[in-house]
């Protein structure tokens, strides 16, 4: 500004000018004012600091000298300023990436505002640049987190869906599409009950109502009706999404395909069953060869002494009972090896325990293990896969036998727990389990037996079978005194 202009100004005008300069210099945005020739008239302190320029290097310079040509090319800044001069209309809200020499790239949000004189002519154009580098980097971080979460959700093997508080579907991930056969688009804004098996719809409705009252739901099994009409068992867990004010904004549901898991589990159960048969093979051979030996000897006696009337009758009777016994053992074996059909049936636990015992009783007796039975004759029937339970019980018997290599007492107890369950206890007087091993006994392949004697799978399979029945196993053990396993099973499946 020339000094003559200053002299001609009135006091109030001078005051006003000072005020403007002050505002200019302390405003946290970068300001540049351009005249019609696109030369800088005013540059504020903020701009000079950010661009590392002096006022001398800036004021009076053309816009093309202020900004690097790359920026000028992609922002088309000169053209935009010219347009504002011509149209008197501001240009707002654009982003500019600007990197001063020796400084990291900063992101600016800029506006072009026309300053119009009394005659309505654009006198100058103001460029206001706000440094939004921090906001942009936060925004990038949020986007990255969102992408990360979306990646997790989309690559998950389980169904992940979000619902509004009324249970309408908002998102439906890849696994959900694969399992249900419905793509996300087909289900958006439809209630989750759309894909629920008819018999479970009422349950799902009440779950969603309960959720909105703050009840969380974990591992509830509901049938999912696929697009082709197939029913697949899904284990659902639901949780609420709340905002900062704790208001419920939605529901997240995670569903595990139990059909897939059960298929794997049943394969594992089956191979473990065969492995436990291997452990018993010696005992089984003895079991079958004894009645065979008796029948064979009787048949030979019959051949050698056909005229002995008394002997003949006795022999025929021994042959018959021997064959019957051998065949009974084979029958029990076959029943045991038969793959589980995956059906829950009403089961008398005492029968399951006793049928398992017939498979191994002889072997236990030969190991000088005395078996005491305290079976509750009025025990209620429970819903179970009997064949699986027998497998679990067999493992408990084998485990007890291994714990008592020099004989002992195995006490079998069945009882009701007074509520909705039954208890089956296997108490041995064996070596016991040391406290450091107690936590490991249900781990697959954990065994203290020499190689080839135990599979190390028995207790871990027992554990999965009991879990499969929604039951629990409790262990109490004292080294040198014995171990007591209590299996708790619910009468009714939830």
């Amino acid at each position, binding site marked *: 500004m020339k000094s003559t202009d200053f002299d001609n100004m009135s006091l109030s005008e001078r005051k006003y000018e000072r005020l403007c300069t002050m505002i200019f210099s302390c405003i946290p945005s970068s300001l540049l004012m351009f005249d019609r020739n696109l030369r800088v008239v005013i540059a504020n302190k903020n701009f000079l600091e950010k661009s590392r320029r002096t006022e001398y290097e800036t004021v009076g310079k053309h816009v093309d000298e202020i900004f690097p040509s790359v920026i000028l090319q992609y922002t088309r800044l000169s053209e935009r300023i010219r347009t504002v001069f011509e149209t008197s209309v501001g240009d707002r809200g654009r982003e500019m990436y600007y990197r001063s020499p020796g400084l990291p790239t900063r992101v600016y949000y800029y506006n072009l505002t026309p300053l119009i004189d009394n005659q309505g002519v654009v006198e100058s154009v103001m460029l206001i640049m706000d440094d939004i580098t921090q906001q942009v980097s936060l925004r990038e971080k949020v986007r990255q987190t969102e992408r990360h979460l979306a990646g997790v959700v989309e690559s998950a093997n389980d169904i992940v869906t979000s619902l509004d508080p009324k249970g309408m579907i908002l998102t439906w991930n890849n696994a959900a599409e694969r399992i249900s056969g419905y793509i996300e688009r087909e289900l958006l804004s439809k209630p989750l009950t759309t894909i629920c098996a008819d018999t479970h719809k009422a349950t799902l409705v009440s779950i969603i109502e309960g959720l909105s009252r703050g009840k969380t739901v974990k591992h509830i099994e509901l049938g999912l009706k696929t697009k082709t009409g197939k029913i697949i068992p899904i284990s659902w867990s639901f949780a609420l999404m709340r905002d900062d004010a704790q208001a419920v904004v939605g529901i997240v549901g995670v569903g595990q395909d139990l059909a897939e898991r059960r298929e794997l589990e049943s394969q594992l159960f089956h191979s473990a069953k065969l492995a436990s048969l291997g452990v018993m093979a010696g005992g089984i051979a003895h079991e079958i060869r004894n009645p065979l030996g*008796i029948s064979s000897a009787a048949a030979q006696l019959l051949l*050698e002494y056909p005229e002995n009337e008394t002997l003949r009758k006795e022999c025929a009777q021994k042959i018959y009972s021997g064959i019957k016994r051998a065949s009974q053992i084979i029958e029990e074996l076959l029943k045991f090896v038969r793959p589980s059909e995956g059906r829950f049936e009403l089961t008398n636990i005492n029968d399951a325990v006793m049928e398992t015992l017939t498979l191994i009783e002889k072997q236990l007796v030969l190991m*000088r293990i005395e078996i005491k039975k305290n079976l509750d004759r009025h025990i209620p029937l429970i819903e179970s896969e009997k064949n699986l339970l027998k497998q679990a019980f067999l493992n408990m018997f084998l485990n007890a036998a291994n714990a008592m290599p020099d004989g002992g007492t195995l006490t079998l107890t069945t009882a009701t727990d007074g509520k909705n369950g039954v208890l089956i206890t296997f108490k041995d007087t064996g070596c016991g389990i040391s406290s450091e091993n107690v936590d490991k006994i249900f781990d697959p392949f954990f065994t203290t037996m020499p190689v080839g004697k135990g599979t190390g799978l028995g207790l871990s399979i027992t554990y999965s079978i009991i879990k499969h029945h929604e039951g629990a196993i409790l262990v109490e053990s004292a080294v040198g005194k014995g171990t007591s396993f209590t299996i708790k099973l619910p009468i009714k499946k939830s």
Partner: protein
Amino acid sequence: MSEKPRVLIVDDEVDMCWALENILMLEGYKTHTATSGKEGLELIQQLHLNISLLFLDVKLPDIDGLKFADFVRQHYPKIKIIIITGYYYRDSDPVQQGLANNLFDGFIGKPFNISEIRSTIETIAPSQ
């Protein structure tokens, strides 16, 4: 006719005792049977001077048959022992080692032929 040896049969299966008893009786042997190790030992202690042959099952509910055999060897060395079991086969280690170390004199696997019993007895305790 020469005196046939007196035989003790120890097997926890009553019917197996019945079968062996009949086979041996009809061959002219005097037989005694026991269905547990304890019962068998009592009989030996009562009759040991007369018993010359022991048919022994290895799996007994109250004692390991091989330990039983060992005890008889120590205290009644004149008694010949024939192991009779469905648990082991002839080529298995306990049987081969037992025969090699003279823990018992013969082995018969269940099920067996009567002729096997005859020839085994003839080999280890030939009739005089």
